[in-house]
């Protein structure tokens, strides 16, 4: 395994925005008990769609641990983004907001990043009711912009991670 860190370039304002989304996501993860967020259902799929008893048994044994692992992944991402949070987005001049800055991701944290960006997209997709490959994006809805932006950044991170795996350690 290659132990070098990955450097993901983000504009300062992107890092701030992403940290905000991860914060909201962490709130969703801990909303259990109040009214579970529908986005969580997609994060905890039913492994036995034709066997309710087996599904219930699986969920009882795994559901809380799975959400705990997601929260731990999200905490890794929040920590990685903390250097972006020195100034509130509205206090930044435009050139400061758009200035590129690298997020340094340790090799051992790559999966936590990939899983968290993926989970954010899954939750947003649930809210946007994206259910098939053919669903059209409503360009008037800014959430589609967020969804597509996350997809773009995730795709870039996957390419960096794949290239990272091919380098000698």
């Amino acid at each position, binding site marked *: 395994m290659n132990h070098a860190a990955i450097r993901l370039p983000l504009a300062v304002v992107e890092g701030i925005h992403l940290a905000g989304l991860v914060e909201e996501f962490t709130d969703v993860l801990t909303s259990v008990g109040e009214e579970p967020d529908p986005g969580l259902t997609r994060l905890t799929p039913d492994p036995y769609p034709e066997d309710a008893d087996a599904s219930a048994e699986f969920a009882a044994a795994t559901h809380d641990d799975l959400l705990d692992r997601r929260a731990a992944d999200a905490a890794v991402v929040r920590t990685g983004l903390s250097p972006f949070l020195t100034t509130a987005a509205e206090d930044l001049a435009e050139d400061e907001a758009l200035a590129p800055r690298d997020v340094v991701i340790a090799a051992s944290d790559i999966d936590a990043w990939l899983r968290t960006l993926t989970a954010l997209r899954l939750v947003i997709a649930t809210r946007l009711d994206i259910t098939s490959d053919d669903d059209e994006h409503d360009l008037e809805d800014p959430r589609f912009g967020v969804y597509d932006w996350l997809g773009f950044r995730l795709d870039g991170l*996957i390419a960096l991670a794949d290239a990272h795996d091919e380098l000698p350690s």
Partner: protein
Amino acid sequence: MGMSTPMATPDLGEVTDLEAAPLEPWQVNVWNDPVNLMSYVARVFRTYFGYSAERATTLMLAVHNDGHAVVATGPRETMEVHAQAMHDYGLWATVRKAPQ
């Protein structure tokens, strides 16, 4: 492996119990969804299962084109562990008995 002493005689009474619970293979299926990126699904198959990049890509394309693919086969408990891992990665995985 050299064997200088004979093995202990197995207790046949225990062995016959296996017939009561035959080891039927189970499967993990991963289903297509419109959210997960193809590059991501292939990467998860490669890094989690240790499949070659080629095999991982073939499986990813099967998920994408056929709607689902069997990504692992084995004992039920192991398949449940794999399904949990797939859920951790945000993939839509189910477990079922392998069709006979």
